[in-house]
């Protein structure tokens, strides 16, 4: 059993010590009224430095990152995170600057942000960027705010609905709801793409816009994107690009050229910055010039070789982050783009698509692939055959992969595919890794037929067996409490 740090506490043990105070003893004073002081010390661990270090080292060994092995988690773009980027973000000239320092003392940081915005404009075909959103969903929210601000600025207040595809990420409808929009779903057609007839029927002067991922969550390129854009624009709506899947098209096609008005990018997916076990990410958004006035404040401007933060933007939606966004993540993404350049970024998408199609081709004989044709950076397989024949579900397949020291794909998403296994290999995997994954998947399929009971018990070799998730939700225990 893994002990909690609190259970390793030894009264009086400690790691950190303050330097001796240099305040002259006669000048030491404290002026906090007694009513404002806490009565009991907060219950924090009491451990030595070596025990603290061993505790967290042991916990790292019970975790799994991209550096540990293959991580084909669909829609998450778990690519290798180059180490030079980590070095760059930790430079004292970046990590040690306060957000409110005078502008003349942070010119290097402002230049990096300004240049990053320019590069993202070129990559996406948009006209202006903000780096302020701290994650993809935060970018979506900022984008939806800009859609609302735009319609409001035109006195067009009856647009109370937002369209999202039935294959959309959960963040799309949740974002629309946060902005007070009623969410309308557009169907996918038999080819897995937005159903144009359905879209036409849904459009009206009450529609604020359409939020779309391209390639979509099935890994398929929305081939009719220009027609989709025309349908939305003709009815006065705006087209929002969810950049979760941008790793498929960098240097090949641009949202700005497809007719999108707003787009976000996930620096932590497409631009090689690590996911940190759930964050921090960074979700910059780009807009076409007619929306630039609505971007959050401050915007970075360049005059005569000097960079400034401009807060004086009357049409701006305001702020979505206390400061300027996740600067440390921006440094990593900037370094990544500078490392690769145009040819390197194009090779990223080419190889991401190559790897996905290689896996799709090799797995197609064994697993059902509902939309089995040329895919982009990911594809969705299904365990419905295994379920029907042997009672083995997508979840069982996932757990069996864990026994083979491989992170499972995204399961049960998108919702329009039953027993979905959403597989995104990314461009940074060798053929040998892909072949080992294929071998594991084929072996699991064999085991499904030969020994399904053992599969339903998987994993067998992980640090725990399957946890009781129902019990966890029914009887939530969200913190440790001391047993007296």
């Amino acid at each position: 059993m893994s002990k909690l740090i609190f259970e390793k506490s030894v009264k009086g043990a400690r790691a950190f010590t303050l330097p001796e105070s240099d305040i002259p003893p006669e000048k030491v004073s404290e002026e906090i009224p007694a009513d404002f002081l806490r009565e009991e010390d907060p219950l924090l661990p009491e451990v030595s430095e070596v025990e603290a270090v061993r505790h967290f080292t042991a916990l790292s060994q019970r975790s799994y990152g991209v550096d540990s092995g293959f991580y084909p988690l669909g829609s998450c773009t778990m690519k290798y995170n180059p180490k030079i980027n980590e070095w760059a973000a930790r430079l004292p000239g970046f990590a040690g600057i306060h957000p409110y320092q005078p502008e003349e003392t942070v010119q290097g940081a402002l230049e990096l942000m300004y240049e990053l915005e320019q590069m993202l404009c070129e990559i996406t075909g948009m006209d202006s960027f903000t780096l302020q959103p701290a994650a993809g969903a935060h970018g979506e929210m900022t984008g939806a705010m800009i859609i609302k601000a735009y319609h409001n600025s035109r006195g067009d207040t009856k647009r109370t609905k937002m369209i999202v595809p039935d294959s959309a990420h959960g963040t799309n409808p949740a974002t629309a709801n946060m902005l007070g929009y009623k969410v309308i779903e557009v169907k996918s057609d038999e080819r897995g793409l937005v159903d144009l007839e359905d879209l036409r029927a849904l459009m009206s002067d009450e529609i604020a816009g359409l939020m779309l991922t391209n390639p979509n969550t099935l890994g398929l390129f929305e081939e009719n994107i220009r027609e989709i854009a025309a349908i939305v624009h003709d009815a006065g709506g705006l087209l929002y690009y969810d950049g979760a899947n941008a790793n498929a098209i960098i240097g090949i096609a641009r949202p700005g050229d497809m007719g999108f008005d707003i787009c976000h990018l996930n620096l932590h997916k497409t631009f090689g910055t690590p996911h940190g076990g759930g964050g921090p990410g960074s979700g910059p958004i780009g807009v076409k010039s007619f929306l630039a006035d609505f971007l959050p404040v401050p915007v970075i401007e360049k005059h005569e070789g000097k960079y400034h933060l401009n807060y004086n933007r009357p049409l701006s939606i305001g702020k979505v982050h206390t400061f300027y966004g996740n600067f440390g993540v921006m440094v990593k993404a900037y370094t990544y783009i500078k490392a690769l350049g145009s040819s390197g970024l194009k090779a990223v998408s080419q190889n991401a698509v190559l790897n996905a199609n290689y896996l799709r081709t090799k797995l197609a004989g064994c697993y059902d692939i509902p939309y089995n044709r040329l895919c982009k950076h990911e594809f969705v397989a299904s365990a419905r055959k295994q379920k029907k024949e042997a009672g083995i579900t997508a979840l069982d397949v996932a757990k069996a992969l864990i026994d083979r020291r491989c992170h499972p794909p995204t399961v049960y998403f998108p919702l329009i595919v039953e027993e979905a296994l959403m597989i995104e290999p990314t461009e940074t995997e060798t053929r040998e890794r892909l072949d080992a994954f294929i071998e594991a998947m084929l072996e699991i399929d064999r085991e499904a037929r030969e020994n399904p009971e053992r599969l339903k018990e998987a994993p067998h070799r992980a640090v725990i067996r399957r946890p009781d998730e129902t019990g966890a939700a029914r009887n939530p225990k969200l913190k440790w409490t001391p047993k007296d």
Partner: protein
Amino acid sequence: MNYVPNPPWVVRQMLDTIGAKNIEDLFADIPEALKLKRDLNLPRPQSEVELRRELAALAGRNLSADDRPCFLGAGAYDHYIPAAVEQLLLRSEFYTAYTPYQPELSQGVLQTIFEYQTMICNLTGMDLANASMYDGGSALAEACSLACDATRRRKILIPDTVHPRYLEVIRTYAMGGKMEIITVPGKDGVADPDAITSMIDSRTAAVVIQHPNFYGNLETALQQIEKAVHGVKGLLIMAVDPISLGLLKPPGAWGADIAVGEGQSLGNPLSFGGPYLGFFAATEQLMRRVPGRLVGETVDREGNRAFVLTLQAREQHIRREKAGSNICSNEALCALAATIYLTLVGREGLKEIARRCHQLACYAKQKLEQAGLKLKYQRPFFKEFAVTIPDPRAANAALLKEGIIGGYELDGALLLAFTEKRTCAEIDRLASVLGGIARE
């Protein structure tokens, strides 16, 4: 640089397996008219040698608080980060992992989040805490939104002693239409309890109090405000400085329903404003409305202790348009930094750090007063206060000339922060420069 591992001959064989003539064939589904028929206009690819040179030069154009005494605070603080925090964060099983969706492969990450949630609960005196939010401002905005959902009311009262940028973030989030934000002018550097209580009514979803507030002052009428807002079944939301909680009575003890704050001070570098850490804690009554990830303890099928993401029915990936928040990625690695930090400084250490910050601030007050300056507000503070200066911009410029990063410029005052990293010698220099200006 190139991070694509397959050499061309392998790519060729893979294309053959797929049945594609060349790599362009793999993009046949993108209409020709949409394809970019040129290279992206970006700088040419660079080697690591060149990248190091360029990035070091860019970083070198910034003045780092590592090299100069820094008295800037206003929501971001120059606290010491123990070396072990930085080292452990480089364990790549942590930093290259995704959100722990697969518990059997993620027990380490899940356990660190569970420990983080416990520490935040113990610091704030609240029942539960989530796995993190983007930063202090957005955590506070989500708290206001939750209060409106939980009470089915619209009105949020906020004294203008709350961080002005937090207020801007809340106003932006209010575009959703479910919140009506009313700012209430403060009085003498603190919230005006009479003004607030006179505005509290049956439509009030919550009152927001930052304590210590933006000006560093303790909010002295907390009790009165708490009684008034709970009297109409509204919520009390508090934004707090986690370092102060080594010393100050926690939000739970003041009767807060939601406690949030900026957790950057706990082991995260200044990093020009991000990535930071929004912490979010609440009472048990609000458990099923809390935004973001929650980790719970359970057992596996053999009865072993196990940790999982739980109560996911609240979240966007399950609940979609009915979710209270759209948050997905959070600031997990910053929360891990906070967990390691709080482990290393420990129970005694946090108290000592809080006390040292306060003592240094008290010492600075004496020195500044001796130098002929006056504090803008004569009120109890924790580690930050405003000192009256007619031209704060000029004062900051004079300090910078002396190698000191000055304070946050207020109208006719400088807001100065004192962390445990500051020394008496640094404070003496600060007082001498500002005193010189005051005498001019």
